[in-house]
Structure formats: structure tokens, C-alpha cells
């Protein structure tokens, strides 16, 4: 396992830096401003929660930070690379090697087995023995017995655990999670968030998570609030509660 720590965090540039992010989409009649002048810095190894009402722009911000889209104005730096200046293929390469995702609606491919779903990013990143690593991860998330099952045969919680295994598969340095427990009941959500936090700690990943769940947000080292496309950091928390 890649036990990554960052003793020299101060000397290094932050993991993520967003400057004056503004995002607008053109609608039929007018343009809609989804994000307005967002500034943000996230250091290596930090876990950050972004909370806000539905429709406030959380998913949009996450997508911009992860380089899934380019902002209308402003810039995003991820691990030293200014992603708003990269081409689509370069951003893809960056995502394949550094970034992991967990989605609210799991986004597993229905035709593939759990194992194959986890192997997908490994294959894209050109890992040597994708199957071995995928197996290990699925065992780690407690699904060692369900390798050949397709998503339809798994419950929501199990599907999200497959998605978490997939997210950590390619050794990302930063993990983006968009309401990972949003589609799950409390108990299951709790188990899934425990798993997410644990893996995050083991792997030393930087975590950026959008959530409704106050509880889950409280377990992160920092919290941001977003309202109508504007970001605020109400208080800097000390050590995260565990």
C-alpha cells in the first residue's frame, strides 16, 4: 500500500487551488450563473466537506475542481497542473492517474460485474495486474464474495462500496465524492461513510466531499458552505472528529 504522508506540506503547492471561479451556462433565453467568484485552497491530505442546499452549485463546483468541465472564468490548479489550461485529453490523463470519484447515484456499468467495474480505471491507467488489485480492493470493502455479481444483483450500499473500491483503485491523490450517502438509508450511509473515511486515511488521499449529511461533514477537517453559487468557510475546525 502506498502510505503517503505529506510532512513538507508547507513547501509544496496546495493540492487544489481555485481562483475566482465563475461558471455560467447559457440557457435558451438568458444565461444562468451557477458559481460566482469562488476561491478555495485545499492542502494535501486534508479532508474537506462542501455543504449547501440542493441546487446551490455543489456538484458544479466539484466537477470544475475535478476537471470534468472548464470554468467560464477563473482557474483551477490540481496537484500543480493548471487544469483550466489543459486540453481534454491531458485532463483525461490527469484524471486517470490522480483523481478518483464517488457519485451519489453510484454510476456503475450495469453490464459489468463488480470486479470488472473496479478494473475499469486500472485498465485505463495501464496497471500491470488490474484483476489482482481489484480483488484486493473489493475484499477490503467487504465484497470479496460478490466479485462476479452485476450491479443489479447488489443492494444500494453494496453498489456504493463497489464504487468506493473503484475510486481508490488507481491510487488517486485526490478523491471527489458527490453526496456519497445521498441515496442510502442512515445505517447503510453510516457504514459507507465509515469505509470512505477509513480508506481515505489509509491511502493518505486528499478528500473533497459534497454532502447534505451534517454528521459526515463534521468528520472532515474543514467545511465550506455554498449558497447560491457563493462559497464561505464559516469556521476552521481543528482536528477532525473520528
Amino acid at each position: 500500500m502506498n502510505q503517503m504522508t505529506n510532512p513538507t506540506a508547507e513547501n509544496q503547492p496546495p493540492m487544489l487551488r481555485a481562483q475566482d471561479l465563475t461558471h455560467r451556462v447559457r440557457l435558451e433565453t438568458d444565461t444562468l450563473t451557477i458559481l460566482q467568484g469562488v476561491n478555495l485552497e485545499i492542502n494535501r491530505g486534508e479532508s474537506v466537506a462542501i455543504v449547501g442546499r440542493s441546487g446551490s452549485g455543489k456538484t458544479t463546483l466539484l466537477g470544475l475542481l475535478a476537471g470534468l468541465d472548464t470554468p467560464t472564468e477563473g482557474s483551477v490548479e490540481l496537484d500543480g497542473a493548471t487544469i483550466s489550461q489543459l486540453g481534454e485529453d491531458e485532463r483525461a490523463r490527469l484524471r486517470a492517474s490522480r483523481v478518483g470519484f464517488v457519485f451519489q447515484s453510484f454510476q456503475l456499468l450495469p453490464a459489468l460485474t463488480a470486479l470488472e467495474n473496479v478494473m475499469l480505471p486500472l485498465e485505463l491507467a495501464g496497471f500491470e495486474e488490474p484483476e489482482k488489485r481489484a480483488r484486493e480492493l473489493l475484499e477490503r470493502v467487504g465484497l470479496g464474495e460478490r466479485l462476479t455479481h452485476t450491479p443489479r444483483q447488489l443492494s444500494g450500499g453494496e453498489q456504493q462500496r463497489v464504487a468506493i473500491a473503484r475510486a481508490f483503485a488507481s491510487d488517486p491523490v485526490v478523491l471527489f465524492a458527490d453526496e456519497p450517502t445521498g441515496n442510502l438509508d442512515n445505517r447503510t450511509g453510516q457504514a459507507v461513510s465509515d469505509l470512505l473515511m477509513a480508506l481515505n486515511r489509509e491511502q493518505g488521499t486528499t478528500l473533497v466531499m459534497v454532502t447534505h449529511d451534517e454528521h459526515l461533514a463534521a468528520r472532515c477537517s474543514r467545511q465550506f458552505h455554498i449558497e447560491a453559487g457563493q462559497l464561505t468557510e464559516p469556521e476552521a475546525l481543528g482536528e477532525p472528529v473520528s
Partner: protein
Amino acid sequence: MAAEQKLMSVRRDWRERDVRVVLAALVIAVATVATIALFASQLQRTLVTSASSFLAADRQLEAENGRPIPDTWLQEADARNLETGQMVEFSTMVFGGGGFQLVSVKAVSNEYPLRGEIEVQSGPDSPRELVQTGPKPGEVWINPRLLRLLELEIGDALEVGNRELTVSGLLIREPDGGFRLSALAPRVMMHQSDVESTGVIQEGSRVEYVYLFAGEESSLESYYQWLQPRLEPSHEWEGVRDGETFSRSLERAERFLLLGGSLAVLLAAVAVAVASRQYALSQRDTVALLKTLGLNGAGIGRLYLRRLVLWGITGMVGGLLVAIPLFWLLASMLSDVLERPVDIHLDPAALMPALLTALVSLFAFAYPPIRRLRNVPAMRVLRSQPGESGREAWPDMLVAIVAIFGLVWLYAGELALVLSLLGGLALLLASLALLGWGLVTALRRIRGGGNAWRLALVGLYRHRNASLSQIAVFAMTLMLAATLVLVRTSLLNDWQAQLPEDAPNHFLINIAPDTVDEVAGFWEQQGQPLEELYPMVRGRLTELNGEPVKEAVSKDERIGALNRELNLTWMASLPEDNEIIDGQWFADSVQTGVSVEAELAERLGLKLGDRLTFTIGSEKITEPVTSIRTVQWDSMKPNFYMAFPPGGALEGLPATWITSFYLPPQKKTALNAFSRQFPTVSVLEIDHIIGRIQEIVQQVTRAIEAILALILAAALVVMAAVVSATLRDRQREGALLRTLGGRQTLLVRSTMLEFAVLGGFAGFLGVVAAEAAVYALQFRMFEGSFSWHWQVIVPIPVISAIVLSLFGRWQLRPVLSVSPMLLLRRLE
């Protein structure tokens, strides 16, 4: 009930992509099948009309006994609203200008010709005209060669028997100037009312009375029913289809259209099946929701059944709206190239197969998966349930296959066709099963990586179920298309081979044995060498195994060959285009035995060793049947029912020689010198008949090309439907792959490769299955010979691979053009 009805609306359905695909499949199905059927019926009318002109009527009744038929027969024809006409044919000497000449006279009534036109010239240098009546009383039209032979001019008198008639025109072509050996001498055409005054026809003269009939097919048919019991053996009733030189070509063209239509039916069924299965899958959530809202299984069944009926109606109406203008377009294109345009007729009966196709494919293919929707558990709303295993669909598939092949059978009326296609299909599925197994074992080992090839192969393995069913549908589609292409190619090749540019177009008959070498030398010098020369003796087959032949053969078979003299020959070696199917050809020193043509042998029920007795003049010869051989009647070379070995019984009898050869139009004047040098040799000019046949073949070829294009377009649509059936899954996958960091180029390459492999395999399987089907069809339906068709075996898999990889690329288009963010939002 009211709720169910409210849930139904075409407009709401239309918003669903899968419904649009089902409707498009139905519209295309109805349009293709209807267009082909309409066109085939139009073509049939066109051909019958063109072909009728070869008889100058729809039917002919020939009286070979030298006596006119009873008047009551003609009155009966009048009573049945048939048009009638008459003609008398006989040979006689005529006198005019510089001398005598043996001519073949045709005296025609006012009505001649009932079908087709006569081509005439009012002088040797005047333009040719088409007219629809023969010469007036007191006038004759003569063959230009006769004009030259007798050194006559237009307006001169020609003595026919006791009568002097005025030469008023040159006869270039008569519509029924058929391929008859009785028409040997130069032709003179006169009016029937002048015949009596010539005094040529005496009791016992060799005269043939011919009666022409034309009218509605049904009236002709019922008239024949009435006439048949009254006919004597010397009467011969001839229809368009009876053994004319070109009728085989036309029959094959019709069969080709039938095949095309049948393939369209199958393609349609495949398209509807694929699209509606996809629809049914996409409806499961809706059904579960409706169930939680309180609709029971029966209600759901009714709801979807009604929807299906609605689609059926929409599909039929839409299909006809496409088919009818398309048919008009094709038919008027065909009509434009015709010498005599045929009215465009929209035959309502031709629409039946199309409508039946829509019904059968909806109820046999679309209904079963939709019916199973009733069983979707309401629980699905809460928690998605495992999908259909596909196993329960097997019995339905079987029923559907039986239904659709039943429909093809009904449509084409050819069990051989159905079995050939089914055989090809079975072979295809068997190879596919094998391939599937191979695919799974071989690909299981492959691990993915950043490499497009590996990713493509992994993709194939991961989607093996979808991949295999896609290969199955593509291969089936390609098989059907390839079958049609192959049959078309061999059809056109056969026609080409049968009537090459330099096919013999003149016959020389009645060559005296001692002038054979001189005649051959004459044409050798002209640079137009003769085909093989054969001796010819005319005789009748009178006894079979010692019994009179008419008693030995069953009464209800009317066999023309028994009523007239047969051309008998002797030959040392079997002609190239004949083929022995039973017994053996004469060994070198053998001088006994007779070789019989296969069709006649079958109709007479002849076996090897049967003894045949021929009466030739006052001689009788009896020989055992030693071989049975097939003959190419349309080869434009002399053909014989009966062949004897050289040096046998026949050789001592007085014979004349016969042959054929090709004479290009610019050398036609050589015939004059030939006729002067060899006045006793008869020249039979059939160049204009060959010209007509080539013209018709060309028209039919055009039609066939158009229909092929239509079918190929339908095949392409089926493939598009199949590819787009997995569109959503593929796009979801593409979006996710991009999110997870797959580069666009990698995505594009691996998808295109995956589809290329799919297409290549499908193409290969399809071509092999098509070869199998063609192999079977060729023997049963098109009488051709079979050989492997490398010209399709190689390109079709390649083309299919390219087309499919382009389809794949096209599918990815929405995944590539927008940011992964937007894709994910759309997937939510």
C-alpha cells in the same frame, strides 16, 4: 379502462426513442415489402405484355392438321369477351420480277396482331415504322431479301398461285416471327381474304391455321378450361410461358423478385424484433410503477396490446405512404425504357404481403416480450430486479420463426426457398454458438490496459451477450443481403453467358450433304465461321416398346413432340452444353442406341433400355434408349430431342444439315450473295428476336438493381436499429470512461475496433451462411451452377467491419462533444 386509455397516446409514445425505432422498423418493413410486391406485379404485367407480343396475342391455338377449327370455338371466345384473330401459314412458290422462289406465306386477318407491332418499311430506303395491322386485301408485304432475290420493286406484282398481288411494303419484323423451323423460306405476308382466290390451299396441302386470343387472364383461363376437352392431339394451345426462348430468363427474374421480397420480410421481422425487445426492456420500470398505482397484469396486457395495434396501424399507413410514391417512381422509370409503355397499375393484392408482414412481425416478434411485461413485479419500483434471463423467450422465438417462415412460404410459394434460407440461418446460428464459445474462452485471458486493442477485446468479452446477439443480427442481415447480391450476380452472369454479344443469330437449314463444305467455306471466308454442323432427319416417334406411343403414354399429357415430326440427328460427341444425366454417351464403335432429351424422357416416362420406334418416311427404325441428356434450349444452337450414334440406322436415310452462326448487322448483305450461291439453303434470321430479348433483360436488370438497392438500404437500417439498441448503455459507458480518465482518442479507437471485430465476424459468418443458402437456392430455383464467390467472401466482412466501426464512432458522438460533467448530469 379509462385510465388505460389515457395512458395511451401516440404523441407520448413518439417521444420515446425505442418506440420511434419500432415504428421506423415497421414503416420500412411495410414500405420495402409493398414496393417490391407492387413492382413485381408491375414487372410481371410488363413482361407478359412484352412477351405476349411474341405471340402477337396472349394465347395462340395452332391447328397442325391442316383444317380450320370449328366456328363454335371462336364464337365461344367472343362470348367470353376475348379478342380473336386468325392467320394461315403455308409454303408455296411465288413468281415475280426475275423468277420463282419458294416462300413461306402468312395470311392474316384484320385483327392481327392482337399484341405487339409489325415493323415495316415502305421502300428499301424509307424509315422503319411500327404498325398494328397487316397488309390490306390485294397487297403483300415481303421480306427485303425476297425483294432482292426476285429483283422486285415496291409496287410490282407478285404472283401467289392464281392471284396477282401488289408488293406494297417490306416486312422487317413480325411480332410473332418466332423461332420456328417451319418459317424457313423468305416471308410473304398477305391478307387472309385473298387466300382462297390464290387456289394454293388444296385438300391435303401442308397448312397451319393459327388462332389468336387476347383478353383478361381469367377469361383466357376459363376459355381454356372450356376448350381443353375439345382439343385434338394436333391442336396446340400456346401461352407466353410455354418454352419460348426467353421465358426462362423471365421466370428467373420473377423468382429473384420473390426472393428479394422474402428477404425483405425477414429483414423487417428482424428489425421489429430487435426494436420491440429493446422497448419492452425499457418499459419495465414504467410497468412496475403502473402496478404500484393499481393497474393489474391483465390491464397492463390490454394497455400494451392496444398500443401494439396502434403502432401496427401507424406502421402500415406510414409504410404505404412511402411505398406507393416509390413504386410510381420505379414503375415510371421502367416504363420509360420500354418500347411500348405499360400502364402503371397499383395491384391491391400486392399490398397484402406487406400488411401481413407488419402483422406477423408485430404479433410474432414484438408482442411476446411486451406480453411478458405483465409479469414485471411491482417490487421493481423499490429495488431493481434481475433482468430477463432470456431463457423464457425461447419458445416465443420458435413460434415467431415458424410464423415468419410460414409467411415467406405463403409469399414466395417456394418451399425450396424457405428451406434454403432456414438452412443458411441454422448454419449461421450453429457457427455463432461455436464462435461464442471460442470468443469467451479466448477473450477471457485478455486483460485490459491503456491499449485500444486490449480495451476493445475486453469490451467484447464484457459485453459478450450483447455482442453475440448483435453479431447474430448483423450476420443474419448480411446473410440476407449477401444472398441477394450473389443470386443477382449469378443471374446477370447467366444471362450474359446465355446471350453474349456474338450469340448465334442466324440459322442455316436444309443444307444438302454435298454442299456442306462449300457452305462452311463461304462463311469462313466472310470471317463468320459456323457453329457445329448437324445432320437432320425428320421423323415421328410412333412406338414405345412395341406399343403405339399414344397408347403407351398417359392420355392427359399433351405432348407436342408426339404430334409433330421430330428433328433426329446423329453425332459422334456430346455437344458441349449438353449433359448426360443417366446412362452413357455412345462409345466409339457403337452404332446402336438413342440418346433422349431429359424433359421429354421425363414426360414420356422413358427409362434406359426402353425401345423407341421412329417412322421416317416409309422406314421404321427401332433403338433402345442408352442415355438421357439435358439440352440448353436457349443456346441459339441446333438442339435435338433424339440423337443417334454415327454409322447407325439413321445415317443411311436422306438427311440435310443444319447449323447456326453469328452475323453482325453490318455484314447482313452477305446473305444476298449466299442466297444466290446456295438457293436451296434456308436462312432463319433471329437477330431481331435476340435484340428484343437483350432489351428485356436490360430492363429487368435495372429493376433488379433498384430492388437490390432497396433491400440493402433496409439492411442498413436494421443494423442501425441494432446498434442503437445499445446506444444508451454505450453512451453511459463512454461517459463514465471519460470521467475515469479515458482519453477521447482511446475511447474512439477502442470502440471502433470493438465494432470492427464485431462487424468482421458478422460479415464472415453472414457470407458463409449466404453461400450455403445460395448453394441450395442455385440448384432448386435458378438452375445455375455453384462456385465459391471470392468477390464477396473477402469484401463483405471488410465492408461490414468498416461500416460498423463507423456506426460505433457515430454512437460515441454525443459522448465526445460535451464535457464529462454534462454527461454525468444527463445520466442521473
